[in-house]
C-alpha cells in the first residue's frame, strides 16, 4: 500500500522534498521498503511452491543442462588460461574440500595404483613411479572456486592429452570420469580433457603433491572451477555414459567451465 500525502496535491515543493527525505530517513520507511522487496522475493518462492516445488527445481536443472551445452559451445580448445610469475603464487594456498582439514585422506605411495578403464586400449594399473617417469610439465595458473574466491598456484605433472594418447583412449567418447580415495567423484568433457593446460598433477610448487592438495595425484584444469579438479585420484574411466559428480549430483553445474 502506498500512503498518499495530502501535501502532494498542493505541490508545496519544499514540503515534498522534506517529506521525501524524512521518509527515506525514517527507519520504519526503510524497513517497509526492505520488507516489500523481500515480500516480492517470498511471493516468488511461495508462488512456485503452490505450483510444485519440484517442478521449479526440475526447470532450474534443465537450464543448468542448457548452460552445459552453451559452455561446451563457448569452450575454445586453443584458448589458454593466463599464467603468472611465481612471485604471484598465493601463500599459503588455501585448502578446500567437502570435508575439514583434519579429515584429509592419507594415501600410501607404495601400494598406490591408478586404474584406467573404459574406452581405452591399455587397461593396466599405473604405479606412482611409472607416472613420475612420464614427461613432466608445470604451470602457474589461477584456481577459481565456485564460491567466488581465487588463488594462484603452481602445479607440475603429466599433460593429460598425452597420457590419454599413451593409454589409447577413444577420444571420440563424451566423458572422462574420476574416482578418488576421499570418496569424491566427478567427470569432465573430452574437449577439456584434451586442452593443453589439463594436467595429471603430481607436484605442487616443485614438491611432491602434499596430502592437503591431493596426494598422490590430482587433475588440474585452469579452464574449470575448483570442484571439477578432483584430488587423490584412484581411477580414471573413459565412457559415453554420463558419470555425474559429487557436487554435480546435488545441483552444481556439470560443465563448471571458467
Amino acid at each position, binding site marked *: 500500500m502506498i500512503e498518499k500525502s495530502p501535501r*502532494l496535491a498542493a505541490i508545496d*515543493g519544499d514540503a515534498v*522534498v522534506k517529506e521525501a527525505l524524512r521518509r*527515506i530517513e525514517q527507519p520504519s520507511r526503510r524497513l517497509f521498503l526492505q520488507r516489500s522487496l523481500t515480500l516480492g522475493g517470498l511471493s516468488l518462492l511461495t508462488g512456485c511452491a503452490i505450483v510444485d516445488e519440484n517442478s521449479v527445481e526440475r526447470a532450474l536443472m534443465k*537450464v543448468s543442462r542448457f548452460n552445459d551445452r552453451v559452455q561446451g559451445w563457448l569452450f575454445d580448445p586453443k584458448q589458454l588460461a593466463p599464467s603468472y610469475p611465481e612471485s604471484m603464487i598465493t601463500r599459503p594456498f588455501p585448502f578446500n574440500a567437502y570435508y575439514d582439514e583434519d579429515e584429509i585422506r592419507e594415501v600410501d605411495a607404495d601400494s598406490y595404483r591408478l586404474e584406467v578403464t573404459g574406452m581405452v586400449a591399455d587397461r593396466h594399473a599405473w604405479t606412482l613411479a611409472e607416472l613420475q617417469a612420464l614427461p613432466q610439465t608445470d604451470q602457474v595458473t589461477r584456481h577459481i572456486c565456485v564460491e567466488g574466491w581465487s588463488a594462484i598456484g603452481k602445479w607440475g605433472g603429466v599433460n593429460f592429452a598425452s597420457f590419454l594418447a599413451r593409454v589409447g583412449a577413444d577420444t571420440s567418447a563424451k566423458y572422462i570420469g574420476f574416482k578418488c580415495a576421499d570418496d569424491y567423484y566427478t567427470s569432465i568433457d573430452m574437449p577439456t580433457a584434451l586442452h593443453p593446460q589439463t594436467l595429471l598433477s603430481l607436484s605442487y610448487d616443485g614438491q611432491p603433491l602434499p596430502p592437503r592438495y591431493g596426494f598422490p595425484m590430482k587433475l588440474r584444469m585452469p579452464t574449470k572451477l575448483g570442484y571439477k579438479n578432483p584430488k587423490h585420484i584412484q581411477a580414471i574411466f573413459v565412457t559415453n555414459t554420463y558419470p555425474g559428480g559429487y557436487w554435480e549430483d546435488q545441483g552444481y553445474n556439470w560443465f563448471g567451465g571458467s
Partner: protein
Amino acid sequence: MTDSSFLIHPAWLRATHWLNALAVVIMTMSGWRIYNASPLFDFKFAKAITLGGWLGGAIQWHFAAMWLLAANGLVYLVCNVATWRLARKFFPLSPRAIVADLLAASRGHLSHADPRQYNAVQRAAYLCVIADAVLLVLSGLVLWKSVQFPLLRELLGGYEAARRVHFFAMAALVAFVMVHLAMVALVPRTLLAMIRGR
C-alpha cells in the same frame, strides 16, 4: 484526441520493464547468497533476503535468470534505439541541465505535470542505470567465463577486479532501485502509467 495520444509508455516498454524487474530481483537476491559463500568485505547478507537456500541453488537461479536479464535487456535496447525513443526521451542532456534540474528539485520547483517528459535528472539517472546494467552483465561474463573472454577480462583488470566491479555495479543498481521506489511512492501515478501505459 484518441487514447493513444495519452500513451506515456508503449506496451513493449512496460513488458520489458516488468520482466527486467523480475530478473533484477532474482539476480540480486541469488547474487547475495553467492556473495555470502565467500564475502569480499566484512559482512554478509541476511539469509532471509537471499534466494536459493544454498550456494548451488543460488547459482542455479542466478544462471537461469541471467538469460532473462540479457535477452530482455537486448529487446529493450533494440526497441529503444529503433523507435528513436532513446534519442527523444533522453536527449539532449547537458551537465548544466542536470545541475539546474537538481537545484530546482531541491527547491521543489521541478514539475511532474507531463509524465511523458523526463527532466534532466531523470534522463541522467536512467542512462546511468542502463550503463550500470551493461557493466553488470559484462563483469558477470568475466566471472562466469574468465578464460573464454580474455579481452573483456583484461579490460576489467582481471578476474579478482571483475568481482569488485560486479559487486559495486550491483550496489549502484540497488541504490538506484531504492531511489526509484521512493520516487514512485511519492508520485504513485507513475506506477499506474507503467502498468496501464497511461
